[in-house]
């Protein structure tokens, strides 16, 4: 199977029914994508497929053939610096998914409201700290 990973051609072997999450972490050594629940509840394994945020634990790798996959390793966004400045991370497990989900929001909505941010991040659970600093960090990137 061939697909684009963070802008570069990528090729993997094995059954197309394997989880994209496992292929990213184990075959392609892109361990920035985290596994939390493995059931589509927590959003830790969020990646972008053709610009849309999805849980990579729910995607069969065969389904990304010919598509563009972006993981946290491929993200270049002011959001990352904002998360550092606002202290919007503790253990870091939710952070890659939070950043990717927030990135999609900012691509679509230049000036999101706090409610927009909460809705866009509703599929990403943080169990450390609460969401206030994360939301403040995202809002600080609104242009």
């Amino acid at each position, binding site marked *: 199977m061939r697909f684009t990973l963070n802008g570069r051609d990528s090729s993997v072997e*094995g*059954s*197309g*029914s*394997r*989880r994209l999450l496992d292929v990213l972490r184990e075959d392609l050594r892109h361990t920035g994508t985290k596994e939390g629940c*493995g*059931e*589509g*509840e927590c*959003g830790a394994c*969020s990646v972008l497929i053709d610009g*849309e*945020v*999805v*849980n990579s*634990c*729910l*995607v*069969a790798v*065969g*389904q990304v*053939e010919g598509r563009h996959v972006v993981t946290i390793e491929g993200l270049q966004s002011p959001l990352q610096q904002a998360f550092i400045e606002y202290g919007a991370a503790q253990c870091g497990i939710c952070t890659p998914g939070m950043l990717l*989900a927030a990135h*999609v929001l900012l691509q679509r909505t230049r000036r999101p409201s706090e409610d927009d941010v909460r*809705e*866009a991040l*509703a*599929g*990403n*659970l943080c169990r450390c700290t609460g969401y206030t600093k994360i939301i403040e960090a995202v809002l600080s990137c609104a242009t």
Partner: protein
Amino acid sequence: MRDVTYLRPRDLKDAVQVYRTTPGCRLLAGGTDLMVMLHARTLRPEPRAVIDLWSLPELKGIRRVDDMLEIGAAESYTGIIRSALAQQHVPALVAAARTIGAAQIQNRGTLGGNLANASPAGDTLPVLLAYDAVVVTDRRAIPVDRFFTGYRKTALQADELITAVRLPLGRQVVFHKVGTRAAQAISKVVMAVCREPARVAIGSVAEIPLRATRAEAALANGDAAGAVAAVAGDIRPIDDVRSTAVYRRAVTQNVLAELLDAFARG
């Protein structure tokens, strides 16, 4: 899971053929249910192959067909939410889609998957019942109130696949979901109500998403209070990890009263 063969048919005709001739296979669309069960190895019998329908253009899209709105079985909830046609003609379905999971799930979940999985808590299923939707398969059209035959059981034959869902235009349907939180919650009670014709459809209160026929009869006679009283006898809630039967019965009556009140206020 590594041994599960992945099959991607070229088109719908190919998919129908492959599904008929591949023993022990399961259909895959957005994967929000199936991928969890595949990975946890909870499917019995364990499938030997999956047939990926996600990218088939015949199963995508939202269009007018005569006096119905037709939604492709593999169209995502995001596609439904963003569709001007869906917003105009089936706003209660759009409202339900917006309550499912969050962006990640809405980008992958589908009506065909919600129907085929047949969870009693499937959020779109009461809405489809309230609209008298029709489930279109590769061989026939099944009225949705005859689709759910038992706990996670459907009227689909072993080799039959859902291609689309059709909903009539011009119905006033309202929707309400009760869960633990706004996003990522599996429903404790989920309800859709149509005033004319009288339809009261409820999820998470029985082994299947059901039509509350006694409540509907009262509502058809213009008796809103009678409908609220009767609905308690229509449902068969249980205690489970999400809620209790007592809570579900009380909340079902409260939600119905609220939705009927909303109709009365216009």
